[in-house]
Every structure is written in structure tokens, then in C-alpha cells.
């Protein structure tokens, strides 16, 4: 049995990250859907979403959304935008937007 490094850099790494983040989002949103499906009071929602386990899983799911979106948008940009400086500018804009969303989401969940 040969155990090599966890994940090869490059294509396979991003391919696996996309799939793992997709599964993490699916599980999280399915769990949320199940919770919201049954009627709860606002106070119960608040308590539930402020629990440590939900904060951690919410943070992980949000990270999954951000990394998933980044790889997807990066792929589309490299496919369609072949002018290097324009692509770099767009990548920076998308990167800043996603990092901003992540920080904002973490602040909301932490509040």
C-alpha cells in the first residue's frame, strides 16, 4: 500500500475541492432546510443558529461557497478572457468580492 501526499497540486486539487465543497454545501443547506421546514418560533431559530455547532458548520459551508465560486469563476475567466491584464483585474475584483462576502458572512454569524 502506497500512501502518497494527500492531494496533488493543480488540476486534481481544484477538482476535488469543487466536489468536496459542493457536498459540504449540500449537506449544510439540506440540514438548514430540514430545520426551517418544521415550524419554529423566531427565538428558537436564533438560539439554533447561534449555537457553536451551527456557527462552525455555517462557517465551513460559507467557506465552501466561496472556494467553489472562486474555482468556477476562475475557470470561466480563463476560458473566455484571454487578455491577461483584463483577466487579472477581473480575478482581483471577483477575489475581493468573495473575500468580502466571506468576512461579512462570518461577522453576521458571529454576531
Amino acid at each position: 500500500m502506497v500512501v502518497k501526499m494527500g492531494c496533488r497540486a493543480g488540476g486534481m486539487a481544484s477538482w476535488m475541492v469543487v466536489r468536496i465543497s459542493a457536498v459540504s454545501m449540500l449537506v449544510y443547506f439540506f440540514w438548514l432546510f430540514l430545520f426551517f421546514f418544521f415550524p419554529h418560533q423566531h427565538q428558537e431559530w436564533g438560539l439554533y443558529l447561534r449555537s457553536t455547532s451551527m456557527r462552525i458548520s455555517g462557517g465551513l459551508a460559507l467557506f465552501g461557497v466561496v472556494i467553489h465560486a472562486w474555482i468556477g469563476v476562475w475557470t470561466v475567466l480563463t476560458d473566455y478572457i484571454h487578455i491577461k491584464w483584463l483577466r487579472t483585474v477581473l480575478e482581483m475584483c471577483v477575489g475581493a468580492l468573495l473575500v468580502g462576502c466571506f468576512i461579512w458572512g462570518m461577522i453576521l454569524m458571529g454576531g
Partner: protein
Amino acid sequence: MEIVIQRFDPDVDTKPYLKSYEVDPEKFSGVMLLDALEHIKEQDPTLAFRRSCGGGVCGSDGMSINGRNGLACVTQLSALPNKVTLYPLPGMPVIRDLIVDLTRFYKQYESVKPWLVGAETVQDTERLQTKDERAKLDGLYECILCACCTTACPSFWWNPDDFAGPAALLWACRFIQDSRDVTQAERLQALEGLYALYRCRSIMNCTSVCPKSLNPAAAISEIRRDMVKTSFALDPAEDRSAVEHKGG
């Protein structure tokens, strides 16, 4: 029936144009689109297209038939509507009329080293395979390199120099799966980057248009699975050498 063909002669034309031909299938023998093209060529010898075997084996007469890549020699006229529009294979430089320059396609094919690399030890006997090992090559070795799949792939249109394309990857899979090949690790390593293999977005045009009903998309998934296996768990190449050792 009306057959509209994109015409372009770089010595005469500044840009491609469409030319329409009226064809009566009763006036020539044969029931395939290639027969109709031969009939048109008798009337208009300036029309250029590739052909060789005429039986879906050589893969020479790939073209876009009503927007879908296929071989003219295995496309029945009865299966086509009354108006047929023919373009050269998309995404490739046009040499003339329906003939495209496939240099890029063959370079990608060459990049996956489409030949068997056996163990260096000279054997007095054939390198035998079990029935199961041989069965793994079914659906892979039958590719005739007609380029219908690769030129139907948007990922190849966008990254023709970096993405190997479905045909080359089908061939890569054919040798990765071959139990007699000893370079599986190197073959997988060569495809590790961001583009050569992983630019496939599973659009599935390749599988949809393959005139031999092969499944390049499944072959690409197979390579990815092998790559994951060699990264995380059992190394299939090591398994293979163990089997060879046992057998030898």
C-alpha cells in the same frame, strides 16, 4: 434534397461562403452522405473534402452535418432532412472547403504517448493478459481518430494548446488501463496540471457525437479515478507489478 456547403479556397476567396447544391438521391448509387458529396464533386470538381475507406473505419470524412459532427460515410441520407448544411469540423483552421488542418489534434494525440511501454525485460513469450484485463480496453481501443469528439468540445475550442481533448484522453486511458504498460504513474503525472485533463467540464459533446459510439467522457472520469487512487490509497501501478511478478 438541398445540400449547402461552406466553401473556401484561400487562393481565391477572402472569406468563407455557403454554396447550395440540389441533389436527387435517385440519380446516384449509394445511400450515404458521402455518396451525395461524390455526386456533387462530379458536377463541381472544385469541391474539396477528405475521404478514404468510405466505411467508417479511417475517420477521414469528419464534418459538421447540420451542426453536429459526424462522418459523411456512415450518415444515411434517409436520416437527414431535405436541407443539409455542411461545415468543416469546428475550431480548426480550414485548409480548403471541408478540409481542416488537424496538426493541433495530432500534437495533442502525440502528447499522451499513444504507444505501449512494456517492461524492459525481454521475454521469450507474449505478454499475456487475463480476460478481465483485456476487457478493460473495450470501448477505448476502437477510436479511429476522426476528431469529431475533440472538435465538438468547447473546452478544446477555448484551450486548444493546453487541454488534450477527448480523443487524446481516450487514448491516454487506453494505455493507462493496459495491464502490460508499466508507465501508468508517469502517464498520470503528465496529466496532473490544470489544463491537460482537468479542463474537461463534462459537457459530454464528445460522447454525443462519437460515430463509433465510444464514451470519451467516461474515459476521462476513469483517468481521474485512477489519479485519486494513486494519490490516496493503493497504487494501481504497484498492484500491477505485483501481479506481473506473480504471473512471471
